[in-house]
């Protein structure tokens, strides 16, 4: 980021601009409530000055002061409520705007970005950072604003009553700030130490709990306990220091404030003795002296909060500023595929200096089955990424039905493929929602037909609420095999002319596996299919087998031809499907 650090402020104002009315109302509310609140001690003072002693009370004045207090109270209460309501509105609305924007961004980001950024980090930007930002910035801002107003207002009102005592307050109050600052600085390193040791302990606990089976299998409990005790004791020592020293801020600032209070009391009382100020005015000074230091402490807290908020919004802006995927060309055509796919001279790599696919050529006739085999990391998944246009090729081109995929709309290209991946993603929702994901308009009969074709109907029927059973985000209690059957049903309901299938490597229980195979087979009938294959039967029945290694198609042909060639395929076949136990 080459931006000047001050940049976000302009953008932050931009975020708040739609709510300028609430901002204005909030500021006005803050100003009114501060002013009205500051009046109360003066009014109380007036009332007290009306009580000179036995038989010398001016009830009219007292009543007048009380009425004024009542009015200012009512005004303050209304202003405070308006202020809070406006702040809430701004904070929650801005959060929603930001999150909606971020989510829309997620839909438009290229997969290369999403694949290379941990989703946990993105989630925390969209959820936690937005919260920290809206809390910190907006609440911090109003606190800051009210704080400054309170300080200014108090100073002016005090100065109006008596300059001398005001000077005492102004000179002595910073002491409490210095004291607080001093303690904060000193405690910082204790906190650092605590954080570091806590981090160590968490890492250790995590490791021990995750590896608990091993710990128990090796009878390592005592040794683990010794190591834990060491860290735990260190943490205890560091924590006592951190907790204790940080908890000193409050008593120390309170002490300094008490000293200021005593000093005001002294000067005030001496002045009052000489008639310089009234007793009521002395009480005004005393309560101001109590209040005056508070906004200072709050403001110093606000500064950290603001810095925090700025760091968070920067992370969100960084996300929003990521370049979008290349949009569909304005003249992009809608694809109506016949299942003819041509890959010509395609090269591709995820990182420029590490070439992956190079000079890839392939011509797939409508209805052909293509099995892709090869060791892990050979580029099988990459091929899927390119076919679906999750990534764009670096060189060469991919044609579907004779048209370059880059000249088609992404949506229409993808809708022409049915995709079942090993990673079975299901949404939190009902079985029905999941099956109808690609075709929400489908009727119940169509849905059930799809589920039957995918051999999923029988297990769905046995679920507590059948098709209306709600499943959790990761498929919850469904087995891996059942999840895959649902994914197949989801594709079955769309019946696209081309398929991309990724056979599961982890074995699923035998009966479900047979069902999945059957479902795959019935789906592939008459459709151009690309299968990342692990099972011998799938491979053998393919029209074309692509043997991939290090991003190249090194052999191509049907099972018999390839075996006869005695090349890499034959070797792979032997190692995976033959004993070789020499």
């Amino acid at each position: 980021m080459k931006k000047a650090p001050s940049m976000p402020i302009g953008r932050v104002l931009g975020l708040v601009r739609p709510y300028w009315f609430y901002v204005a109302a909030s500021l006005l509310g803050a100003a009114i409530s501060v002013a009205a609140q500051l009046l109360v001690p003066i009014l109380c003072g007036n009332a007290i000055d009306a009580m000179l002693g036995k038989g010398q009370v001016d009830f009219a004045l007292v009543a007048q002061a009380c009425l004024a207090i009542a009015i200012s109270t009512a005004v303050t209460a209304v202003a405070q409520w308006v202020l809070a309501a406006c702040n809430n509105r701004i904070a929650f609305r801005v959060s929603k705007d930001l999150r909606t924007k971020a989510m829309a961004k997620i839909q438009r980001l290229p997969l290369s970005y999403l694949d290379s950024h941990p989703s946990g980090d993105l989630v925390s930007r969209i959820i936690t950072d937005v919260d920290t930002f809206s809390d910190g910035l907006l609440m911090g801002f109003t606190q800051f604003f009210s704080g400054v107003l309170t300080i200014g207002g108090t100073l002016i009102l005090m100065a109006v009553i008596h300059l001398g005592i005001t000077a005492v307050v102004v000179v002595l109050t910073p002491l409490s700030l210095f004291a607080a600052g001093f303690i904060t600085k000193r405690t910082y390193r204790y906190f650092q130490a605590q954080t570091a040791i806590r981090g160590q302990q968490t890492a250790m606990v995590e490791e021990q709990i995750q590896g608990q089976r091993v710990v128990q299998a090796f009878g390592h409990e005592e040794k683990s306990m010794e190591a834990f005790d060491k860290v735990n004791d260190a943490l205890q020592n560091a924590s006592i220091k951190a907790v204790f020293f940080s908890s000193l801020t409050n008593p120390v600032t309170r002490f300094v404030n008490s000293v200021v209070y005593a000093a005001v009391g002294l000067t005030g009382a001496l002045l009052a003795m000489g008639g310089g100020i009234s007793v009521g005015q002395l009480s005004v000074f005393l309560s101001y002296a109590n209040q005056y230091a508070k906004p200072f402490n709050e403001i110093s807290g606000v500064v950290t909060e603001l810095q925090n908020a700025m760091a968070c919004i920067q992370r969100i802006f960084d996300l929003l500023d990521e370049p979008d995927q290349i949009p569909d060309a304005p003249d992009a055509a809608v694809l109506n595929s016949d299942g003819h796919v041509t890959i010509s001279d395609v090269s591709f790599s995820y990182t420029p200096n590490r070439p992956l696919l190079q000079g890839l050529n392939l011509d797939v006739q409508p209805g052909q089955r293509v099995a892709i085999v090869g060791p892990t990391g050979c580029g099988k998944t990459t091929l899927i990424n390119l076919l679906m246009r999750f990534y764009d090729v670096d060189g060469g081109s991919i044609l579907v039905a004779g048209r370059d995929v880059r000249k088609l709309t992404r949506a229409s290209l993808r809708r022409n493929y049915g995709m079942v991946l090993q990673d079975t993603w299901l949404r939190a929702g009902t079985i029905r929602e999941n099956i109808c994901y690609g075709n929400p308009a489908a009727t119940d009969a169509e849905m059930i037909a799809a589920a039957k074709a995918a051999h999923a109907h029988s297990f769905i029927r046995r679920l507590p609420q059948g098709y209306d059973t709600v499943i959790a985000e990761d498929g919850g209690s469904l087995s891996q095999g059942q999840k895959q059957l649902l994914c197949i049903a989801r594709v079955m309901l769309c019946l696209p002319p081309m398929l991309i299938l990724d056979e599961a490597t982890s074995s699923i229980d035998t009966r479900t596996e047979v069902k999945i195979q059957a479902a795959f087979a019935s789906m592939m009938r008459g459709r151009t299919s690309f299968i990342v294959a692990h099972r011998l039967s799938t491979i053998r029945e393919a029209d074309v087998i692509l043997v991939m290694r290090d991003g190249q198609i090194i052999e191509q042909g049907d099972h018999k031809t390839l075996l006869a060639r005695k090349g890499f395929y034959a070797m792979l076949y032997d190692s995976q499907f033959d004993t070789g136990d020499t």
Partner: protein
Amino acid sequence: MRDLYTHLKGHRLVSVLAPLFKMLEALFDLFVPLVVADIVNTGIRDQDTAYILSRCGLLVALALIGLTCSVVAQYFAARASVCCASSLRRALFAHIQALGFSEVDTIGGSTLITRMSSDINQVQNGLNMFLRLFLRSPFIVFGAAIMAFSLDRTVATVFLLAIPVLFVIVFGLMAITAPLYRKVQTRLDSVLGATRENLSGVRVVRAFARETEEQQRFTNFHTALTRLQLFVGRISALMNPLTYVVVNLAFIAILTLGARQVQGGWLLDGDVIALVNYMSQVLIELVKLANTVILISRALASMNRVSSVLHTPLSMTFPSATAPAQNSAAVVFDDVCLTYHGAGDESLSHISFTAQSGQTIGVIGSTGSGKSSLVHLIPRFYDATSGTVSVLGRPAAQWEKGELRKKVAVVLQKAQLFSGTIRSNLLWGDETATDAQLWDALEAAQGAAFVREKPLGLDEPVEQGGRNFSGGQRQRLTIARALVGKPDILILDDSASALDFATDAALRKSLRELSWHPTVFLVSQRTASLRKADKILVLDDGQLVGQGTHTELLDSCPVYREIYESQFEKGGDAQ
């Protein structure tokens, strides 16, 4: 709660002194308005400079004593809460260590980690605040009322009215908003869920071209969240204005009543100032109290979660000494059934077999057929629900824990290493092993070559969970770790899955040639890996459907033949 008390016991004195000193501090706070009243009533009225000076000196002295008490209290509170949390953490860790596999399965690893870290931190904070504020705040609230009574009974009635009303407002609003805030949390969770879902399912979303609908769905969730947030926000925004109104009404009442008392000569103006001051103190402390209550209720919820783990009973007990051997067989299963806690169906049903010492036993079957369950019974990770598992001639339940686990080494499916060095990890198998023995084990586990290539050899650092090694390397290191202890029974639970074929074969060869001839259990999904086993156990859905050698099983066991054929030449299974 009871647990908290137990762990505070060692720090009883500090945890009693902390709130006491806090109360002492509060007491000195309560004197301040009285002193001010004296300054006004006596000092100013009598024009007594010396008196004023001495009273102001008294104010400073009170502040100084208050500071001292407060510092002492903060120290005691910090000490008590930190030590209590620390001892709680230790007890929890020790208990987690003692928990059996089935309890950990039920509770879940990530839950345990949260209990150990954030929950206990929450308890520490809550306890700290409790010790500091829970006595102080009520003390000031009621103390202020009592002080008011000492000044003037009539005016003090205002306190009797105002305090309950303030209580009702502060705690009433909290009671109303607390469940609403929980609801806000649920809605926030659904927004979070939608976000996570869109990221994890981005390929499917795009494959079905459903970006617009997903965006709409997210917006709907968020609209519901925002609406509720605004609603709750409006309610809790009442707190400040309402309390402010009540306190100011109380001011008005104090002034009006006070004026009458002053007129009657029963009260001086300085006393009115003191009464107003007491009222302000009441409000400040009530708000503090409300915040403390929130913090403490959160801490209590955390404490309950910690307690529930602490009180998870241990389902297994081990005898302190191992019983004498009754026969020479390595492992005997006699009609063994296993049902996991909370599971409906049996995971193993009526399994019987014998493994003679020195034999290699293969275990095969599809995922979920019970292979791991079967071998986990041998080191007694779980107890059989019925039937007996005998290990080295005596029932597994009659072994002392440490001895059994030393004789039986298991290499688990998930290759788990611990931060340290390669050496520190291998020494888990046997503390006293020499470097030569470590290299022997690495050699047999096919790991010597890559360890030798590391710049620091055996001292090469291992990061948390061993993430700086590849899957295959981790597997070989865990196998070596098991071999270091020269166990009588070695169990490899599908622990060579990340090894390429040649290494896998070499590993099996070197296992057959181990000098001390352990009994080896090989769990695998590949018939090729088990062909040379002395006996192969075929599991299907928890049942032992066949046992024998490869050739015998090919003849007699249809399930074995099916697995074999799906992996070898003949026929497919798709048709």
